[in-house]
C-alpha cells in the first residue's frame, strides 16, 4: 500500500519530467527527498529519478542501513567510502545513462528569497559541471514545486494528523503558562506533549519550539522567537509557535496568549485587528483566488485599523514535507490558489511597544473554500493569573 502511494507520486513526477524533457531529476532538498524516499534524511542524501524507470537513492554511509530499511526504493547506494556526495551523484547519473541529458537540480526558488533546506551547494554543482560536460544542468525547483504543491489524499491525511498533534501541543502550552515559568519550560511541555502524541521532530529553523514573551513578542516584523530562559510574567503577551512532523508531513501552529484576564486597550486593539484579518482570509480563500489580491485585501484591514506599520505583507507559506514550498502568500504573487493545496496561513502583527500576534495555521484549500486542519481557535487567549 505504502509503495503504491510512492509509485503514484513517482508517476506524476516522471510525467512532468517527460513534458519538460528532463532526463534525470536529482532531488536533494528536504521537500522532495521526504516526498520521494518516504524516510527522514537529515544528512546529505539524493534521489536520482530517471524520466522512466526506478529511482536511485544516494545515502551517506552512516545513515545508509536505516534509510534503506525504511524506504520503498529498491536501488540504494551509499557514499562516503572514498567518494564524495557529488561524485556519487555523478556515478549514478552515468549508470542511468544521463551524461548527455537535461539534468534537473534543486538550485533555488525564483520566487522566494528564503533558502529551502537541501539546495545544491556551489561546490557540489562544480563537480557535476566538471564531470558531466555534455549534460545540461537546469533548475528543477519551479516545476517540482508545481507537482508537490497539490496534495493527494494520503498526504492530506498525514497533514491532518500533524495538525491534530499541533493542537495537542498548543493545549499543553496553554496549560503550562503561568507567571514564573520560563519560555524554555513551556517549550519543554509542548515538545513532550507533541512527542507523546506521535510527532517525530520539532522541526524548525530556530532550534525547535518558539516561545516568546513580553516585548520579545513585539520585535518589529519579527517572525522568530527561539525560547530562552526568560521568565514569563503577568501582564505579558506570549507567542507559542510549534512545529510537528507526522510521517514526514509537517504541522505549523502559532498560539497567542495574554497573561491576565483583562488585557489593556492597546493589546485588545491589536487582537481585534489580527482576528479580523484572519477571519477575512479564512473566508476569502478558495480555488481561483489570486494570491496577490488576497494579500492586498488582508493588508488593507491592517491599514484600516491603523496598524499597517506593525503588519507584515506576508500571509503564509505552503506546507507539506517542508515549509519552504508554495503557495507563497506574499505581495505580488500572481499565482492562484488551487484545490488540495495546503498552507500554513500566516498573519503577523508586531508592535514593539505593545507586543505581537502571529498566526500559523495549517489550512487545506478545498473545492469550495478553506478548511483549517488545526482546530486551535485563532484568537487571543486569556490566561487567568
Amino acid at each position: 500500500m505504502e509503495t503504491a502511494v510512492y509509485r503514484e507520486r513517482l508517476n506524476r513526477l516522471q510525467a512532468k519530467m517527460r513534458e519538460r524533457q528532463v532526463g534525470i531529476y536529482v532531488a536533494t532538498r528536504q521537500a522532495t527527498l521526504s516526498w520521494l524516499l518516504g524516510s527522514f534524511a537529515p544528512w546529505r542524501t539524493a534521489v536520482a529519478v530517471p524520466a522512466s524507470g526506478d529511482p536511485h537513492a544516494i545515502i551517506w554511509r552512516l545513515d545508509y542501513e536505516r534509510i534503506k530499511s525504511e524506504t520503498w526504493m529498491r536501488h540504494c547506494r551509499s557514499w562516503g567510502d572514498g567518494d564524495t556526495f557529488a561524485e556519487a551523484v555523478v556515478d549514478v547519473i552515468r549508470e542511468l545513462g544521463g551524461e548527455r541529458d537535461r539534468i534537473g537540480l534543486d538550485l533555488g526558488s525564483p520566487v522566494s528569497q528564503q533558502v529551502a533546506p537541501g539546495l545544491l551547494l556551489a561546490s557540489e554543482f562544480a563537480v557535476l559541471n566538471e564531470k558531466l560536460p555534455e549534460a545540461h544542468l537546469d533548475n528543477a525547483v519551479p516545476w517540482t514545486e508545481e507537482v508537490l504543491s497539490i496534495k493527494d489524499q494520503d498526504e492530506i491525511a498525514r497533514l491532518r494528523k500533524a495538525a491534530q498533534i499541533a493542537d495537542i501541543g498548543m493545549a499543553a502550552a496553554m496549560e503550562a503558562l503561568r507567571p514564573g515559568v520560563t519560555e524554555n519550560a513551556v517549550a519543554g511541555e509542548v515538545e513532550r506533549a507533541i512527542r507523546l502524541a506521535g510527532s517525530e521532530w520539532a522541526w524548525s529553523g530556530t532550534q525547535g519550539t518558539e516561545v516568546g514573551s513580553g516585548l520579545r513578542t513585539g520585535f518589529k516584523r519579527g517572525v522568530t522567537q527561539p525560547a530562552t530562559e526568560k521568565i514569563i510574567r503577568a501582564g505579558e503577551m506570549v507567542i507559542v509557535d510549534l512545529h510537528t512532523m507526522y510521517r514526514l508531513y509537517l504541522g505549523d501552529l502559532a498560539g497567542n496568549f495574554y497573561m491576565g484576564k483583562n488585557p489593556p486597550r492597546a493589546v485588545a486593539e491589536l487582537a481585534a485587528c489580527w482576528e479580523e484579518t484572519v477571519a477575512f482570509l479564512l473566508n476569502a480563500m478558495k480555488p481561483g483566488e489570486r494570491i496577490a489580491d488576497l494579500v492586498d485585501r488582508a493588508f488593507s484591514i491592517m491599514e484600516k485599523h491603523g496598524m499597517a506599520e506593525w503588519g507584515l505583507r506576508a500571509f503564509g507559506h505552503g506546507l507539506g514535507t517542508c515549509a519552504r514550498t508554495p503557495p507563497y502568500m506574499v505581495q505580488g504573487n500572481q499565482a492562484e490558489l488551487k484545490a488540495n493545496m495546503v498552507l500554513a496561513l500566516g498573519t503577523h502583527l508586531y508592535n514593539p511597544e505593545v507586543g505581537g500576534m502571529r498566526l500559523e495555521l495549517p489550512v487545506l484549500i478545498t473545492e469550495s473554500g478553506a478548511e483549517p486542519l488545526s482546530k486551535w481557535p485563532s484568537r487571543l487567549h486569556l490566561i487567568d493569573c
Partner: protein
Amino acid sequence: MGNVETTINYKARLARIADRMKREGFDFLILTSLPSLAYAANVYQSLAWYVNTCAVLSKDGMNSMVVPYSDVDRISLETWADKIETWNPQLRHLKERKFEAVVAELIRSEGVTRPVIGVEGNLTWTQHQNLLKELPEAEFRPCDGMMQALMVIKEPEEIPLMRKVASLCDIGFEAALKNMKPGMSEVQLCGEVEYAMRRHGCEGYWVPNQAGTGTSVLLDHYPTQAVIEEDHIVKFGIHPAYKLYRGDIAATVTLKKPDPKFKHLADVCTEATQACIDVIKPGIRSCDIDAAFRTIMEKHGYGDYTGWYIGHGIGTGHLPPFISSEDQTVIEKNMVIVINTMAVKKGQPGVVYETMVLVTENGHERLNRNPIHLVELN
C-alpha cells in the same frame, strides 16, 4: 549591538579572526555556517535550514551582518556585530534588496580592489552565482578550514558553556533511563528527554535527537512510532543547545539480560572506549586515539564491528578533528572532543557509546557522566 549580554571576550575573538585572515590572505569573510555564525556573530541562524543570513568580516575590523528584514530586531539584541544590513523582497513601500547585493555593497564600501573573499562550503549554487555576478572582480576561496582551526580550541570563557551543555546531555540521559519502558514509542522517549532538558535551560536542538529500538542497532536512527519491546535494545542520541553551544552524547540500553556473546562485545567496546579516552592529552595525534580503540577491538576479533571514525570536535557546531586512523591532527589543550565509538554489525545486537571530553593541560576530563557501557535496564 555591541551591548549584547555575553561572557565571551568577543573583541579578542574578532581580533584573532582578523589576524588569521591577514595570515591566510583573506580581505573579507562571508560566514554562513551554523558554527561560524554563532562563533563570529553570536547568532543562531542556520542558513542551510532557514533564510539568507551571514556575517561579513574584514581583515581591517569590519564586523557586520546581513539579515532578513523580518528578523533584524531580534538579531540586533543578540549579535555583537557593529552594523546590521537587511535584505527584503519587493514590498509596496520598500524596494527589493537582494541578499547577495547587500553583501556586495558592504564589501565594496571598504574600497578594496580585487578583494579575496572567504566563503563557506554550505553556500548554495544560487547564492554563489549571485555573488559572482555582484562581485565580478573578487576572488572567492574556501575559508572553512581557517574558521574550524579557530573554533576547535576553546577560549576559557567557552569551557563553562561546554560544561553546561554537557550537563544538559546528562539530564536528558537520566530522563531517558527513568522513563524508558516497554510499550513506549521512540518518539515518546525523545519527548521525555527533551522535556527534562528544557526544564534545565536547554534552548533547542542543533540536530534532531535520536532514538532507535529493536533487536539490533542502527547508527543513525531518527525516532518513529516504533514501540520499545521487552527484548529490545534502545540506542539514543541527545543533542541540546545552550547559548549557541552544542552537546552530543549517545547511549545504548538493553531491556533484557544480554546473552554472553553480546555482553562480551559490549564490554570489549567499553574497554576500548575507555582506552582511547585514557590516551587523550595534548600532543598526541587524532590517529593515536583511534588506534587505542581499534587495537583492543581487533585483539578481541571485533575489528569489523567498528566504523571509519570514532569521534569529532564540538563547540558551536560539529567540528574537526574527525578522529580516524588517517587523521594526523595534533590534539591540543582546550579542544572538546566527542568520543563516539561503536560495535555494530548489521542485524546483530550492538552498542554505540558517545561522550564529551575536554583536553586539559596534562590529560583530559570527561564532561559527561553518562555511562560508556551497555546499560541493563532491569
